[in-house]
């Protein structure tokens, strides 16, 4: 008895080591979900979570109940741009898909100022979720500036202008009008494509075409001429770089416009004193600068007119929860449990550590200690099915301090039935198969030595798949 206690302690230490060993693969599989694992429990299941907290993995999803996501438009990105920079958002809607294949719809909700809130349905435990938010509103004026620059650099637009030149060259005004109409249509398509690339799509595509089409056709002259003026002003022979104080060859149309808009008469005077150009050239450049700026403003106003009345949608995705690897582990946990514990074999008087896999009779929700579900056809059988499992495993080291174990090689196969008492603990019973190691008596080896034998066992165990949560609870209580 004196020896039993320290030996049992040593055995428990062995079980602890075994727990760590069994946890290692799970921990490895979950290494990408650390933030969710350490999420503050207080915010989980509160019924409302902040979009920013979900995005930065500061909170876990409130599984098992409907909840709301609240946010601010300043926190949302569409197409790589901050939503607040591109759109005056008015409504938010969308949908979501969970890792177990379920889909849900996010009902449209009005945005008050910059604040928004959406309702999400009940999510199954441990699923990861991809939210697709659709934000609808009108474009902000700043978008047109970037759209002009993108349009002029777009290969499709360059091709469209080349096609126009080929079609309109040496033609009268009637033929030219046809070519300008085609250029306008191509320009509308290119502008739509550029907006799409920025994550902005018209809520009704026909609206944009109907609104932008006539405006572009009416302004095709400044649009085309701006495209032609741009390279002429960047011609090194004109020395515009000396005027604006920077290399103009790499500037976009928007950047060049901003540089030229910042020029004062003093800048032109300074250019005159240091430039080798004559007055005629400098005056011509000054005139072309005015025309370029006029054309730029005309195009900007045209795009504003064509787009301001059109409702646009911006998409923003948010993936919350587990990664694919951990989803697999979460899914596996619905069908099998991995336990370690101690078993007692009465007939051979041995207490041994063991590791087992428990196979359920279908998917279970170990986190829900729910009352009987009236929607299930046989709720009592369902309750039993949720708790009972087939068990297979191995019995490991002796914990009772037996000086001579009867089990050959210390390992034995165990099988039986497990009953889950709660989320973490289980009671298992069944048989233990092993080969005997019997001591020789009077120099004679027993004929039973090495024979395959079976013992009945019973013992408690702990579900190691639930341990990460258990660990976080202990860590929290310690930190509190």
């Amino acid at each position, binding site marked *: 008895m004196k020896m039993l206690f320290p030996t049992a302690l040593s055995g428990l230490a062995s079980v602890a080591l075994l727990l760590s060993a069994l946890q290692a693969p799970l921990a490895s599989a979950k290494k990408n979900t650390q933030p969710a694992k350490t999420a503050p429990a207080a915010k989980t299941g509160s019924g409302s979570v902040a979009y920013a907290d979900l995005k930065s993995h500061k909170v876990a999803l409130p599984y098992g109940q409907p909840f709301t996501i609240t946010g601010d438009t300043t926190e949302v990105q569409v197409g790589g741009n901050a939503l607040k920079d591109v759109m005056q958002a008015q409504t938010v809607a969308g949908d979501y898909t969970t890792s177990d294949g379920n889909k849900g719809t996010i009902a449209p909700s009005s945005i008050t100022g910059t604040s928004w809130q959406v309702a999400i349905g009940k999510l199954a435990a441990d699923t990861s979720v991809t939210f697709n938010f659709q934000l609808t509103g009108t474009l902000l004026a700043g978008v047109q500036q970037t759209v002009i620059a993108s349009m002029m650099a777009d290969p499709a637009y360059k091709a469209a202008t080349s096609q126009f030149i080929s079609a309109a060259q040496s033609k009268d005004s009637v033929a030219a009008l046809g070519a300008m109409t085609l250029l306008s249509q191509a320009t509308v398509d290119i502008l739509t494509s550029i907006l799409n690339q920025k994550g902005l799509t018209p809520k009704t595509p026909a609206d944009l075409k109907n609104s932008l089409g006539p405006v572009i056709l009416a302004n095709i002259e400044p649009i*085309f001429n701006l495209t*032609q003026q741009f390279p*002429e002003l960047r011609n090194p022979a004109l020395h515009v770089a000396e005027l604006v104080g920077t290399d103009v060859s790499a500037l976009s149309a928007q950047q060049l416009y901003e540089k030229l808009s910042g020029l004062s008469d003093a800048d032109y005077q300074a250019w005159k004193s240091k430039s080798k150009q004559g007055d*005629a050239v400098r005056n011509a450049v000054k005139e072309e600068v005015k025309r370029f700026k006029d054309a730029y403003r005309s195009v900007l106003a045209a795009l504003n007119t064509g787009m301001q009345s059109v409702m646009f949608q911006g998409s923003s995705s948010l993936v919350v929860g587990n990664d694919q690897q951990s989803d697999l582990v979460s899914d596996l946990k619905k069908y099998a449990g991995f336990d370690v514990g101690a078993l007692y074999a009465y007939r051979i008087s041995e207490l041994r550590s063991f590791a087992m896999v428990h196979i359920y009779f279908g998917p279970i929700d170990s986190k829900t200690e729910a009352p009987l579900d009236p929607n299930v056809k046989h709720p009592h059988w369902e309750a039993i099915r949720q708790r009972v499992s087939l068990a297979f495993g191995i019995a490991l080291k002796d914990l009772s301090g037996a000086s001579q174990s009867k089990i050959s090689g210390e390992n034995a196969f165990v099988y039986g039935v497990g009953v889950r008492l709660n989320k973490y603990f289980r009671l298992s019973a069944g048989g233990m198969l092993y080969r005997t190691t019997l001591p020789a008596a009077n120099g004679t080896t027993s004929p039973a030595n090495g024979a395959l034998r079976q013992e009945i066992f019973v013992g408690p165990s702990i579900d190691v798949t639930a341990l990460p949560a258990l660990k976080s609870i202990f860590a929290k209580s310690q930190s509190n």
Partner: protein
Amino acid sequence: MIAGFLNLESANDGTTRTVSVFALEDATGGTETLQFQILDQAKTVTAIFAKNEGKTVSVTHTATGTGLVTVTAAGSAQTSRRILDLDQQPGDVGTAVHTA
């Protein structure tokens, strides 16, 4: 050789229609031949340039309506193109008012 063009534009005083361009000569100087294509009407004009000189060259024409106007220079890769309304007269609605 022409090194660059600027300010390709149209003028119409109700009697005479002209298209003009500012042309910049490079360091060679000499006589340059400029070819204007004013919608469906082609016009050629020669002008004498001093080294690095820039000046406005104009041609008269009878083309009407809005369309593509192009000017090129013989022996140079420089080209200037604009869509121009050749009928527009000073004071017409839509006539550009240039601002600084």
